[in-house]
């Protein structure tokens, strides 16, 4: 059974249609890309799947559960996570604290435990700190651990956001334009990390405009245009599809 199953999903805002009749499946541990011109509805589709806006109709099944009515945080607890097009770092916290804040099910988030279960809270903090350091090493952010997040470059912020999501031990990460505003060296770095995560069995779904980097990264692509899915398949196949060339690139490639 597919991990994420989207069935006939549509979103209308008044007379405006963000997307409609979207149906697709993401397999467990798959690595998939999503392309489309600006305004094709990609980000809106992401938002609908992850709970940031309510679709007009259709279903979203995650790990066999209908999550269409779930709040954002309920979906996250099931393992369905995302990053943002514009990084949303916690600017006043350090890089390390950004990851620590992300740790799920912390007893220290509960005021009663802070008073009555201090030992347990401290133990959890040590465990989470260890995990956070492991993730910072993996992302090669360890040297920046005690820098304020606001002082990072755009690409580093994208890595940080990925790191925060990894603290959640997710089953599926939706990445919204991970390469936008990132320098070429870091793009390579980020691609390698994404492949590593794929190898660990996490399902990844990537929106990206950088077609070269994306087609090198993913074995499967979807293409959207004006709110509809118009093609799917291997990257070389999708990029040659006349409908995609017509809609997305205006026939320039």
């Amino acid at each position: 059974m597919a991990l994420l199953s989207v069935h006939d999903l549509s979103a209308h805002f008044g007379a405006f249609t963000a997307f409609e009749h979207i149906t697709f499946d993401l397999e467990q541990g798959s690595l998939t890309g999503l392309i489309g011109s600006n305004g094709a509805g990609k980000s809106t589709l992401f938002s609908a799947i992850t709970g940031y806006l309510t679709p007009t109709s259709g279903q979203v099944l995650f790990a066999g559960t209908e999550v269409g009515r779930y709040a954002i945080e309920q979906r996250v607890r099931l393992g369905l996570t995302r990053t943002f097009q514009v990084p949303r770092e916690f600017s006043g916290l350090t890089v390390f604290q950004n990851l620590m804040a992300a740790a799920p099910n912390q007893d220290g988030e509960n005021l009663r435990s802070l008073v009555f279960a201090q030992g347990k809270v401290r133990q959890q903090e040590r465990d989470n700190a260890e995990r956070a350091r492991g993730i910072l090493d993996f992302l090669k952010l360890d040297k920046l651990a005690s820098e304020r997040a606001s002082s990072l470059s755009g690409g580093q912020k994208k890595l940080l956001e990925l790191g925060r999501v990894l603290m959640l031990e997710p089953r599926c990460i939706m990445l919204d334009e991970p390469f936008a505003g990132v320098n070429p060296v870091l793009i390579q770095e980020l691609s390698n990390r994404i492949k590593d995560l794929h190898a660990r069995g996490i399902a990844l779904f990537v929106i990206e405009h950088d077609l070269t980097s994306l087609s090198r990264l993913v074995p499967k692509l979807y293409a959207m245009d004006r709110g509809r899915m118009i093609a799917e398949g291997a990257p070389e196949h999708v990029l040659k599809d006349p409908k995609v060339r017509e809609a997305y690139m205006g026939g320039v490639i």
Partner: protein
Amino acid sequence: MIWVDLANATINGIVIGLLLALPALAVTLVFGIARFPNAATGDFMTFGAYTVVAAKSLLALPLAIGVAMACALTALLSLFFYWWVFRALVRRSPVASLIVSIGIALVVRSTITFFAGQSQYTIEVPLVRAWNFDGVRIVPTDLYIAGVAVTALVLTFCLLHLTPLGRRMRAVADNMELARASGINVGRVMITLFAIVGFYCGLGGVLIGIKAVVLPELGWELLLLLFAAVILGGIGSPLGAIIGMLVFSVSQEIASLWVGASYKIVFAFFLLLGVLLLRPQGILGKVRAVR
């Protein structure tokens, strides 16, 4: 005769609702376009009302000229604060503008009380006998007030929907970055916005000053009602603000038959909580997406 009381309360509510729709429109436009609840709105109204008092008592000007002066001066006041304060905060969080608008409210009101003191004033208009239909009373002055308010409201809708300037304002309200990118001069839109806002606050303040008495707290005490009406109508929706204000003031007038007029703010407060609980996007509000 309960239905006579009800009818009178309803008529009164409609008149007050129409005139308060002017500052409510000012609140919703700033909320929708400049993205913050402007807490100085009420005290701009107070400023308008005192301008007429000053024009009549110090300069002995006729009412019509006083009203025109009030609208113009309040517009200038509003523009001044845009130019000095809000312009610098456009790119900061709306929180900054919100806190500053409270500061402006305090500054405007204290300047008024410094010169005019805490005592009450009235704006005298020629007394006309009310028309009486079996106890249901219609005061001609109220009709004038309602007429002025409706005219101003109709003009706004013409401005917003029929002129290029209005189209630009709506574009900025929809998406400021996109509007800027497509070549709209956001600064000019803001200047227009704050001029209109001042104008409406001034006019609304004068009209409520004619209907009731002029006090330093005149506008401040209406602020919560304005916010509540705007939220009920759907933030950023001009038509919603008018409907919200009418709903509020009619129900408030009717409720005050039973609970007494001093509970008006309390009533507005609980209605606001109710709206936020049941329909936070308001009657005509829309949902915004996250990027």
